[in-house]
């Protein structure tokens, strides 16, 4: 199989993947056998019993064989029951996390993913997990239906608003794998992508300790977070307005607010804008910024502020 | 069922009501009636959707349905039940009479049925306006502070949608009875041919049957 997967199936990177693939190929080969049988017979008969010009005979009707009819009812029946049993056992395994699985909270919103770890670290777009350890994602959505899909792990489950659902997997290979949103969620549906980054246990712990900062400076880290936390979706850093105002030159600017007043954008203002976005609304913009950033760990908030500061004119 | 195929006998005098593509009046009548039954089944399945919603939310939040029922008046509901049952009786009588060729009996019973249907709607109107007055609206507009547990709005959504669609059916029934009355007065119906009366009768009984379920489900339990 190797890393690239087979003709039909993508690479395998989780414990369940191999079983799902065997199941797939089992169904596949049964189908091929029946297909070749039925369509082969069709082609053969079509050729063998083709009408020959000049021939005017009308074939005799065939009698109905109870035994034949019974055979082609019973044999497929047995086969599908077999497939069913296997499929349903694997389905239960696929959906029942082992009790000591590592818990991660997933929030989906149009059109971004956010992953929160038990120690408070939270990160957008990139899901970091350790290899060889069961991970359980508890998922919910802020708005409409989404669906969490990692082909390499063969897992998928819908993410619902107002209800927790979960998936679990145990990654078997270090590497990066795609996350897709597979429940249609509007204009940005096809852009609602992510990555699973599978680390060794040691790397993972280091990453978690530093909340992903590693040895970056706060400004650099803020820049990473700007993408990871999806600020980029609404805020540009090149001066062009988006859903929200641009962050370029924000620091030190006199910001016009919706209620007519104005305020100097200093560190405090920026911090407050992130954790309590609806407190002061910038004039000309909707109060559309999610309030979820309040739960970011302090280092990350500091890093973001530092980064925005670095964008001052 | 092979018996329903009929032998074509050409040259037989066709009664005026017999359409050209039917062979006999019986065939035409049976066909119309079966068509009506099929239509009634579609009505049942239409309401089935709401019964499913009812069952699902009742299983999830039984307490809400008990509380909701206390806000509905079983006396008014019961009165309306009796009214509808009576109208079912009169509509059955109207068919009974026309089958015997009694056109006066037919007409009287059509009017009685119509009166019952209108009574039903009037009572429903007062029930609705009373609710609106209290601020009981379906879904997110629900604003009655006395009973404000979670999901009570769902109960009233279901209540309004179910009784609303049922009410629309009653209203359509009234229209049909007016139409029947006009034709009856014009003397269109005879003991030989009264298909429209039969069909509207069937329709009306289904409207009644649906209410037979709505009443206990919404008002009583």
């Amino acid at each position, binding site marked *: 199989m190797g890393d690239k997967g087979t003709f039909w199936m993508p690479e395998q990177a989780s414990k369940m993947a191999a079983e799902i693939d065997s199941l797939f190929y089992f169904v596949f080969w049964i189908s091929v056998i029946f297909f070749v049988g039925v369509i082969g017979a069709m082609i053969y008969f079509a050729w063998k019993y083709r009408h020959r010009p000049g021939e005017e005979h009308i074939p005799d009707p065939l009698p109905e064989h109870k035994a034949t009819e019974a055979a082609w009812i019973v044999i497929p029946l047995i086969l599908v029951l077999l497939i069913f049993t296997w499929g349903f056992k694997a389905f239960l395994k696929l959906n029942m996390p082992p009790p000591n699985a590592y818990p991660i909270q997933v929030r989906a919103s149009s059109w971004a993913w956010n992953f929160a770890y038990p120690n408070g670290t939270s990160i957008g777009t990139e899901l970091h997990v350790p290899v060889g350890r069961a991970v359980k994602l508890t998922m919910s959505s802020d708005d409409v239906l989404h669906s969490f899909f990692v082909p390499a792990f063969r897992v998928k489950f819908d993410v619902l608003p107002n209800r927790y659902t979960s998936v679990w997997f145990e990654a078997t290979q270090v590497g990066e794998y795609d996350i897709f949103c597979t429940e249609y969620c509007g204009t940005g549906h096809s852009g609602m992508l992510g990555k699973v980054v599978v680390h060794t246990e040691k790397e993972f712990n280091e990453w978690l300790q530093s909340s992903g900062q590693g040895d970056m400076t706060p400004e650099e880290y803020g820049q990473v977070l700007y993408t990871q936390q999806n600020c980029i979706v609404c805020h540009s850093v090149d001066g062009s307005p988006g859903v929200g105002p641009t962050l370029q030159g924000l620091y030190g600017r006199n910001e016009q607010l919706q209620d007519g007043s104005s305020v100097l954008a200093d560190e405090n203002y920026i911090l407050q804008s992130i954790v309590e976005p609806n407190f002061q609304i910038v004039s000309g913009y909707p109060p559309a910024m999610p309030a979820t950033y309040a739960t970011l760990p302090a280092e990350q908030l500091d890093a973001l502020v530092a980064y925005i500061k670095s964008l001052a004119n | 069922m092979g018996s329903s195929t009929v032998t074509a006998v050409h040259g037989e005098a066709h009664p005026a009501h017999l359409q050209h593509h039917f062979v006999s009046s019986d065939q035409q009548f049976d066909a119309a009636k079966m068509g009506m039954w099929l239509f*009634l089944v579609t009505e049942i399945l239409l309401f089935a959707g709401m019964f499913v919603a009812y069952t699902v939310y009742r299983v999830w939040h039984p307490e809400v349905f008990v509380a909701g029922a206390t806000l509905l008046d079983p006396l008014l509901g019961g009165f309306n039940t009796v009214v509808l049952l009576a109208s*079912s009786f009169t509509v*059955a009588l109207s068919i009974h009479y026309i089958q015997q060729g009694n056109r006066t009996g037919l007409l009287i019973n059509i009017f009685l049925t119509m009166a019952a249907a209108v009574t039903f709607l009037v009572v429903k109107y007062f029930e609705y306006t009373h609710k609106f007055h209290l601020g009981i609206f379906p879904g997110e507009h629900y604003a009655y502070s006395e009973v404000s547990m979670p999901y009570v709005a769902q109960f009233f959504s279901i209540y309004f949608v179910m009784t609303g669609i049922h009410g629309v059916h009653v209203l359509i029934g009234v229209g049909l009875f007016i139409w029947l009355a006009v034709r009856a007065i014009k003397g269109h119906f005879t003991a030989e041919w009264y298909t429209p009366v039969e069909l509207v009768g069937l329709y009306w009984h289904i409207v009644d049957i649906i209410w037979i379920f709505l009443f*206990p489900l919404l008002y009583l339990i």
Partner: protein
Amino acid sequence: MAHGHHITPFRTLLQTFIALIALTVVTVAASQIHLGPLNVPIAIGIAVVKASIVAAFFMALKYDNRVNFLVLAIGLVMVVVFISFTLFDTAFRGDIENVDHRTIDQIERTEEALKAREGQGPGGG
């Protein structure tokens, strides 16, 4: 041609009507007594009986072509299928832990209620 059509006698119709009224009284009465979990099945049972009476006599199914009964019966089977198969989901939602059987609203309300209880301090409950 009317010879083919069954004419339901007045007596039968009247009896049907009286039976229906009687059952309506029974169902209202039964709902006023508290029978615990029995109230719901009794009410539905009576409604089913009433509906059958209407169908059999007022709608003359009892005397009618069998095919019309079949039409109705198949329709009702589908209603039962719709309700029961939907209940397979909604009544068992969350049976294998990968889906929470409560909504997030419900979870939050429970937590708030618990907090409120704690807030009252020991002995407050």
